[in-house]
Every structure is written in C-alpha cells, then in structure tokens.
C-alpha cells in the first residue's frame, strides 16, 4: 500500500532531516512509528502524502508515485486520510460542514449524501449531538474524533496519524485511542506516529523506531517490545516504559 524507498530530505546539505529511509506498509497493516522528538517521524509521515517535499528516493502510495511531478496530488491525497496533532478542524465551519466540505468539493458528492455520510461517521465516533456546533465548542478529544471522522468521510484507502494524542489532556487520550483501536480492528491500513506504547502493543503489527532521521529499527511488534536489537531503541523503550 505504501512503499518508501531510500528517501532523503535535507534543508541544507549539512542539515539532513531524513536519511535513506526505507520501509513499507501493506494493506490492512497497522504500523506505529516512534522515536525521540526531532527524529524525523512526523516529517516522514508528511512525505507520504506530499505535504513535505523530499530531495531523493521514492514513495509509492497504492502504486502512484508521490514525488512524480505529473501525479495529481489533490486526487491522491483525497484517498489518504490524515489526522494532525493539532486537529486542524476548520473553525469557521460547523462540525457537520467540516465533514462535508471535501466530500462535496473534492469527491463531488451531493449535499444530502455527504450529510448522511457525515452523520453516520459522527455517530460512529460518538458525537452525533455535536453536529451543529462549532469546533471551538468541543473539547480537544472531541475535536480529534471529529478530525478522524472528517478523514474517514473521504473513504480513504489508508490513514496517517501524526501524533494524534500529543496535544490532548491526559484524560482525553483514551477516547481518541479507542476510536483508533476500533479502526485498526476493522482492518484499516494505518501508519501512526505516536508515543502511546499501549496502543502499539494492542493493535500494531509492526513498530518502526527512528532516531536522527534514520529508521533504526523496523520490527514486528513482539520483536520490538521483546528484544530491540539496537542500543538506541532499548534506551528509548526503557525511558518511556519506566513510569
């Protein structure tokens, strides 16, 4: 589904952000990307739907080359759902209109069909009653669930999550993770940048560990948590699991 091969990204020759990153996500797989801050994991996931450019290497999403100038990026992105750290709901639109905008303008769905779809998804994330409110009237956890519903409204073939719970108060993390766990169990292909190791243990098939722009470890969940091969991954795990 996603093929990342030898991706390099730099701002200046001496400031390399991604170094020779190669990995893949197959259909129905849930891959968790973790690592210390500044390790390039958010940058990598943003390269997948071309929100960030990169200088060399290739990324294929469902057979389409992301870094080909001829690729119709809006069309490709409409099939790749993305959830951001800071939700990025559109504050001037009601919740239901947040879900309908791209359905209507990008997919060309008629308004009533888009609304029906939107309401179904809001019900699924438990926020049907909030449809007529504005984003700022919702809590952070609720906003992030709306953001997930908004991405799902486009019927994506894969979902990207960029630290979806890092900006949330602790008591709201689980309501968002619950939605993500359900999604994973339904067979959605997911690439998730997160520090939530509990989530990784529960639903991940593979864990990628990044440090200083490199993929240091790319292993099955059991291998990663059982016996990480690299020193850096061991140190990282011992630090975040010690509490």
């Amino acid at each position: 589904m996603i093929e990342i091969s030898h991706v390099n990204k730099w701002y200046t020759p001496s400031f390399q952000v991604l170094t020779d990153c190669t990995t893949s996500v197959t259909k129905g797989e849930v891959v968790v990307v973790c690592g210390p801050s500044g390790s390039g994991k958010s940058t990598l996931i943003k390269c997948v739907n071309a929100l960030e450019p990169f200088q060399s290497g290739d990324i294929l999403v469902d057979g389409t080359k992301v870094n080909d100038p001829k690729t119709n990026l809006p069309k490709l992105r409409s099939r790749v759902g993305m959830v951001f750290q800071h939700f990025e709901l559109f504050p001037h639109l009601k919740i239901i209109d947040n879900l309908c905008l791209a359905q209507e303008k990008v997919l060309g769905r008629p308004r009533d069909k888009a609304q029906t779809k939107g309401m179904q998804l809001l019900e699924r994330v438990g926020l049907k009653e909030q449809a007529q409110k504005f984003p700022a009237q919702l809590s952070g956890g609720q906003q992030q669930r709306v953001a997930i519903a908004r991405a799902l409204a486009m019927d994506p073939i894969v979902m990207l999550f960029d630290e979806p719970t890092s900006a949330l108060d602790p008591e709201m993390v689980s309501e968002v993770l619950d939605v993500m766990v359900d999604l994973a169990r339904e067979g959605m292909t997911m690439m998730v940048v997160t520090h939530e190791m509990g989530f990784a243990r529960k639903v991940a098939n593979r864990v990628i560990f990044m440090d200083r722009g490199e993929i240091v470890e790319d292993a099955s969940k059991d291998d990663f948590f059982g016996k990480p091969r690299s020193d850096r991954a061991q140190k990282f795990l011992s630090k975040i699991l010690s509490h």
Partner: protein
Amino acid sequence: MFANLDFDVIRRALPYLFYEGMTFTLTLTGLAALGGLIFGTALALMRLSGFKILGRIAGIYVDFMRSLPLVLVIFWFYFLVPYIGQWVTGASRPISVGAFASSLITFIMFEAAYFSEIMRAGIQSISRGQPAAASALGLTYAQSMRYVVLPQAFRNMLPVLITQTIVLFQDTSLVYVLSITDFLGAASKVAQRDGRLVEMYLFAAIVYFTISCVASYGVRRLQARIAIIR
C-alpha cells in the same frame, strides 16, 4: 459668536448637498472599496504565491502607491491618462476620460495597495496547519484558499477593512482637485456662492463626523457578531 450665522442656508442647500454631493461620495466610496478589495486580494495572493516575479511586481506596486500622497495620484492620473491613452491607442488627440471614471480608477488603484497589505496580514494570520489540512483532504490550492483560508482571513480582517473604508470615505473629498461635486465640493460651492463658509464647512464636518462615527460603531457590533468562536 453665533449671532451672525444663518443656519437656514444649510436647510435650503440640503437637497443639493445630499442628492448630488452625498450620492457621488457614497457611490465613489462603495465602488472604490469593492474594486480595491478585488484588486487588493489579487495583489495579496501574488505576494504570497510561490512565484517570485509576481511577488516582486506586486511588492513594487504596493510600495510605489504607498509612497505617494493620494491627492498627487488623483491629480497626475487625471492629467496623464488622456495622454497615456493617446499613446497606447495611437489616437491623434488625447482620449477623454471623465472625471468620475478617472477618480474611480485612481481610488481603486490606490486603495488596492492598502487593502492588499491588510489582506496579506489577514491571510498570514491563519496558521499553516489549516491549508495543510485542506490539502490533505484533497482540496486544490484554489479551493483551499476559497473555502478554508480566505473565509477565516476575511473574518479576521473585516474590522480593519471597514475602518480603511471609512478613511476612504473621508479621502474621497480630495476629488475637489478635479472640481468634482462630491459632498464637500457641493458644500463648498454653496458656501462660496452664498458667502456662508463657516456654516457650510461646519455642517460638512458634522456630517462626515456622524457618518464615520456611526460606521465605526457598526464595525464593533459586527465584529462581535461574526467573530469565529475560538
């Protein structure tokens, strides 16, 4: 002090002042604000676009316009355009541009420079995550601007835009250099004719003051109503 003043001159001049003068002033203000907004948005988008040349052209234009006194632009434009028109079209004599058309074009060009700076600030006030989220949903650059960035930017800058329009409303009185009968021009003519300078200029000041004050108050009310809940 007011013993010698004849306020009846104002009452007698009212139809002329408002039907001729104020109609012109409001028409010019409205059309210039509309045109300036459209042209100004285009300039702002040019400056924010990735194309360096477009940005430079818009930048030079804005700096140029903002470095000249409005009254000079009005004056020069009125006297130069017929000759530029002649040169462009190759006509045998200077083409005639009416005083209204000339002043309208001048105000649109001048206000666009100010509006574009307001628009630019407004667009830049939207966090980068918003267009990113719009792109991630598959919206094109134009759609993301139209449905996500500009609606929010407009709400943020509407108070400043209207305030600038109030300034424009007052600035339209500068068309007196072209001997156009706007509100102040009409008042001035009556004042000269009847020798009632104090009364007429006092009255004109009160009218400008009242309209501008009411508009400012309206802006504050509007601001409270349309502000995005944050």
